[in-house]
């Protein structure tokens, strides 16, 4: 599957295209198929996202899993600061990245 991701312009937060808007959680990300670039252009133009780009991901029972480790780290947060990730309560969260 293909996901569209970027950063929030004002806050810099990592965001994922959900099909109708932007979420900080990769679990909410929608498959953009071949439409990623067009959505990216429209959303960037409307300043709802900064520096958007399309990535490959795998659909898994737990939701989309970005193909590249860099995007998995973006999706979770720094692996060395579990307290600052999006899943601070889950001690296993880091293993999802590897």
């Amino acid at each position, binding site marked *: 599957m293909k996901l569209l991701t970027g*950063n929030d312009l004002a806050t810099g937060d990592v965001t994922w295209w959900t099909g109708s808007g932007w979420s900080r959680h990769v679990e909410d990300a929608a498959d953009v198929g071949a439409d990623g670039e067009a959505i990216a252009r429209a959303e960037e133009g409307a300043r709802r996202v900064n*520096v958007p780009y399309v990535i490959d991901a795998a659909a898994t029972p737990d939701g989309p899993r970005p193909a590249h480790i*860099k995007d998995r780290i973006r999706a979770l947060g*720094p*692996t*060395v600061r579990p307290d600052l990730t999006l899943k601070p309560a889950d001690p296993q969260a880091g293993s999802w990245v590897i």
Partner: protein
Amino acid sequence: MYRYDHYDQSIVDARVDEFRDQVTRRLSGQLTEDQFKPIRLMNGLYLQLHAYMLRVAIPYGTLDSRQMRMLGSIARDHDRGYGHFTTRQNLQFNWIKLEETPDILAKLATVEMHAIQTSGNCIRNISSDQFAGAAADEVADPRPWAELIRQWSTFHPEFSYLPRKFKIAVIAADEDRAAMRLHDIGIQLVERDGLLGARIYVGGGMGRTPMIAPLIRDFVAADDLMSYLEAALRVYNRYGRRDNIYKARIKILVHEIGADAYRAQVEEEFAAVKQLGLDPPAAELARITAMFAAPPFDPAAPAEIDRTDPDFALWLDQNVRAHKAPGYSIVTISLKPVGGIPGDATADQIDLVADLAERHSFDELRVTHAQNLVLPHVRTSDLHAIWQQLADAGLAEPNLDLATDIIACPGLDYCSLANARSIPLAQKLSERLAPVQHNLGELKMKISGCINACGHHHAGHIGILGVDKKGTENYQLSFGGSGAEDVSLAKITGPGFDEDGVVDAVERATDTYRTLREPGERFLDTYRRVGMQPFKEAIYG
């Protein structure tokens, strides 16, 4: 310490106002990201993996308690409670919001700080010896010269769009504590026949093509230093390549045309520049130098020290160095707790160090290129009290220059350019080697998460470079580098490893060293004596 005059302050204040307006225009859509990106980078604002990152300049690594407290307060109010001290003696905040950046810069400006020229193809923050003004071995305090270069290079119209970024280091001792010859220009102040001057090295650097800067001029009188630098930069600005980013640094120019040809060009330019009167009038130099006058040391300060507490004695031996003034000492505060994140400090730790600097170190502290902090002027009789407070805050690791005092760049946990993570590897190595580190002696380990080499892996006694091997993290191991006066570049051992593999390989290498070492040898000395082969056999079997 240098204090801003009216000009410095108005330059910085005007820049804050200008950037506030630019941010407003970006947020309202008047500026596109393509238009805005070079502007934010000129103000030290990057977009990293998780958020914007702000790199704050700490000129030649020197700051006072007021500035340090402001960094702590920004960490608390605008970031997530911590900051990261870098190998460029700067500080990076990892979780900055664009909309808050103008306010952050305005706060920094109130304490004479900024983020100008911490990015972009300009002359970056000047680095220097963290023991400047405190070490007994310096011929002069290098900081007035570093400050002069800071002023000269700030918004220098001719050098704001160089072919590539440009890093200058100034030291004034034979012991190189600033990796001087791995800078674009390395300046060593020296004295000749009673005259202060500088030895100039040009064309060093790390990154993709590491090079040790060759000596370009053996002596330039201090009075001519700025003219000489102007000439050295002009030749680079004219001939440095702009067509290929990988060949754009001055090291490539000096290497390709040769040191002799570069030197000849600079001499010719220097002869012309000298007529322009660029060097500061004596009064201006005196004004700057006076601000770096030695603090009023107490000549009666006692030198005795009670070493009965063995933990304190260990820290004294490892992290405290002799000061030029009797009864005083130089304290290095390790930001490398075993298993911790190299260079990170919490807002509370930042505040504590500010308090200690104010109370015990004539209000001065320093950042080192090895990502530690220094209290440069501490009464020896205060050391025990300081050590206790540091220990309570997790800042008393007695490991300066030992195997757990690892330099590591942010790597793939934060950096958008990274190929692999650096920090988790540093943590594992630190935990693995902590039990034996005092037996190993000085061992400088340095880790970078990509070829850009912010973690100085080329200069590591043991250097590690993270690479991307078909989508997985892989680590190249190298031995034999040094950023000190015995400067050398590390050599790759052979095929790379995964994270656990490289930790095992480092352990096998240090075990090998322990069997081969001769009395007084460091890992680096043994490696230089016996060569790569025995280590290779131990690592690859």
